[in-house]
């Protein structure tokens, strides 16, 4: 069974601070995704990383996939109150057998205070 551990579970910071969320596993994933979920809504995809060592930037968000494709991180620069939400990492398994099955981490609840 593939498991993803996310840390920290809760993060409460002031606007303007930087933060990093980590997603770790002992399993190799063919790709890894980060989703953001706002209260009362479903998760929305932020990014998919595929290649070991890959770094993707989305405005103030930087996503990294570990060289061994077992871990990933999400770094937010100069957090804003609009970044508040639940951040979920999700791993896609071996494409030949997973049929789109996503394994989710436990999530990080981020609260950015004004």
């Amino acid at each position, binding site marked *: 069974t593939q498991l993803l551990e996310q840390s920290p579970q809760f993060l409460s910071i002031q606007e303007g601070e930087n933060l990093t969320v980590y997603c770790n596993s002992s399993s190799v994933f063919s*790709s890894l995704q980060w989703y953001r979920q706002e209260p*009362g809504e*479903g998760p929305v995809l932020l990014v998919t990383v595929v290649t070991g060592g890959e770094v993707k930037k989305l405005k103030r968000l930087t996503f990294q996939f570990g060289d061994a494709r077992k871990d990933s991180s999400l770094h937010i620069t100069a957090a804003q109150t609009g970044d508040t939400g639940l951040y979920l990492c999700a791993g896609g398994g071996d494409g030949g057998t997973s*049929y789109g099955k996503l394994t989710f981490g436990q999530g990080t609840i981020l609260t950015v205070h004004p």
Partner: protein
Amino acid sequence: DTAVSQTPKYLVTQMGNDKSIKCEQNLGHDTMYWYKQDSKKFLKIMFSYNNKELIINETVPNRFSPKSPDKAHLNLHINSLELGDSAVYFCASSQGISGAVQETQYFGPGTRLLVL
């Protein structure tokens, strides 16, 4: 022009009852999913259908029965509801079956089920 819609949004019911949740996607996708999100926000896949065929069936009590009348709809019927079934249930869809690169899954707004 909602992409993935679910009904109802809220469902409060008594233990032992049978209830259904409906999901529809207008994205033309071939694959649909049901997820359960517990009170700790952990999201776990339950079922997946591709072109009306069941392709993922995780360890879920057989009180839960999905049904896909066509590839735009995936419904979830739950028999003999238990307290532990209380959760948020999300429907999602993707274009096809993911290969080496995970496809984007589009989630519905969720159905909040409370069993009393």
